């Protein structure tokens, strides 16, 4: 009987899903040490009421190109040059560089910023960031549920105001080889209790495959039955009131010649207008994805 109990315990341990990690929003003063976010202010005042906010999400890959190069690419692109908020994933900080790359990018674009580390990377950190032309406030960071044998993922939140209306912004970068059930469970804590007017953007890694033990993509299965996680995550977010105006724009990332729709901007409590993917910006395996949003009168 003791042997049977031991076998069952081992099986249960090996069969466990995400560790919910007590995921909850943490304010700035709850974060310390390596996880202390960096915040900086821009020079502009708040957006006037009725204004249109252009929000971009962009995975800059492994810390990204030099910040001046990214800034130049944004200024040279007619759509990105008008970006008001940019959500960035795979941002890095290495002490030898003196300042965070996000701070340098933000200052190049005359924006305020928050950079939140998710985990150690070499002698520094890797994480996510939000930069904005308009003042950001009410910063928070959440350590998302961790999948077995995977790395810590986070969500970063801030508020930007359009007139007297607050828009809650959240960016995140989810794990790669998760099945859709675990992907929903990893994202859920960051979106389930947001205010009515909210925008969630980032790299959701909604790849086209089902995965065996988070290691093997069932590529042949995906040829026969639809295992694409992007519409499934759209469906989940729709169940809590979010629309995805970027869904119909197509794939957002290319690697080894295979394109996938990994990135998205989900919107709730706002209207949306023009949107696009800037595929001529090739500083990363991802392309910048943007959408214009307005608060309801």
């Amino acid at each position, binding site marked *: 009987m003791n042997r049977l109990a031991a076998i069952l315990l081992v099986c249960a341990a090996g069969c466990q899903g995400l560790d919910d990690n007590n995921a909850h929003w943490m304010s700035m003063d709850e974060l310390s040490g390596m996880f202390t976010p960096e915040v900086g202010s821009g020079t502009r005042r708040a957006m006037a009421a009725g204004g249109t906010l252009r929000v971009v999400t962009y995975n800059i890959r492994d810390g990204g190109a030099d910040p001046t190069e990214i800034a130049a690419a944004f200024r040279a692109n007619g759509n990105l040059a008008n970006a008001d908020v940019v959500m960035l994933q795979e941002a890095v900080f290495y002490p030898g560089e003196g300042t965070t790359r996000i701070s340098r990018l933000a200052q190049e674009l005359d924006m305020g910023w928050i950079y939140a580390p998710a985990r150690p990377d070499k002698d520094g950190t890797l994480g996510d960031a939000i930069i904005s032309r308009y003042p950001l406030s009410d910063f928070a960071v959440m350590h998302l549920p961790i999948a077995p044998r995977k790395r810590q993922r986070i969500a970063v939140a801030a508020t930007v105001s359009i007139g007297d209306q607050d828009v809650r912004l959240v960016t995140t970068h989810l794990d790669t080889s998760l099945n859709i059930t*675990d992907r929903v469970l990893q994202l859920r804590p960051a979106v389930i209790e947001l205010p009515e007017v909210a925008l969630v953007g980032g790299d959701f890694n909604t790849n086209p495959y089902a995965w065996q033990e988070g290691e093997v993509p069932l590529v042949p299965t995906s040829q026969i039955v639809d295992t694409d996680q992007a519409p499934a995550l759209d*469906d*989940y977010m729709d169940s809590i009131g979010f629309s995805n105006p970027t869904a119909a724009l197509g794939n957002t990332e290319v690697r080894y010649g295979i394109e996938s729709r990994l990135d998205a901007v989900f919107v709730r409590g706002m209207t949306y207008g023009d949107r696009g993917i800037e595929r001529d910006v090739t500083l990363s395996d991802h392309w910048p994805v943007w959408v214009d949003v307005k608060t309801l009168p």
Partner: protein
Amino acid sequence: MRAAAVVVCVALAAPVNAQPARDDGGEPAAKVEDRPNAIYVEALGKGGVWGVGYERHLAKWLGLGGVASFTMLDGQRMYSLTPYVLVYPLRSGSHGMFVDGGANLIRIDTPSPVPEWDGMSESGIGAELSAGYEYRGKLLFRFYVQAVAGKSGVAPWGGASIGWTL
């Protein structure tokens, strides 16, 4: 994946020491016509991750079979059924090269892990074509490469089987 590795290792080890299969009385290798049925388990292959198969030979060079599997993928339930026709372009004693082809039926149920979402289900039918090596005595071993085709395209795959002939 560990189960798959075990099946592959066992199947790799056996033919190294294989003699033409003999029964307890030291009689010659079992003939297909004497043992036309086979049951086997697969790693990867027609079931995607694993499968259980049954096959019956209608002639020395021709067989019909099917592989079924059920796999849990972090709460998702994947069901697979692959009926197939198998032929032997080459055969010598217990060893042969085989080719098989058939339909691949898959259903994936995704129960919602959260109360606010309904979950979803998807089904599809495709085709598979496999070719490989077989050792067939009282025991059955196979290794093969496979092409799987469906509405989204074609992908390579492969598998290994171990079983018994009856």
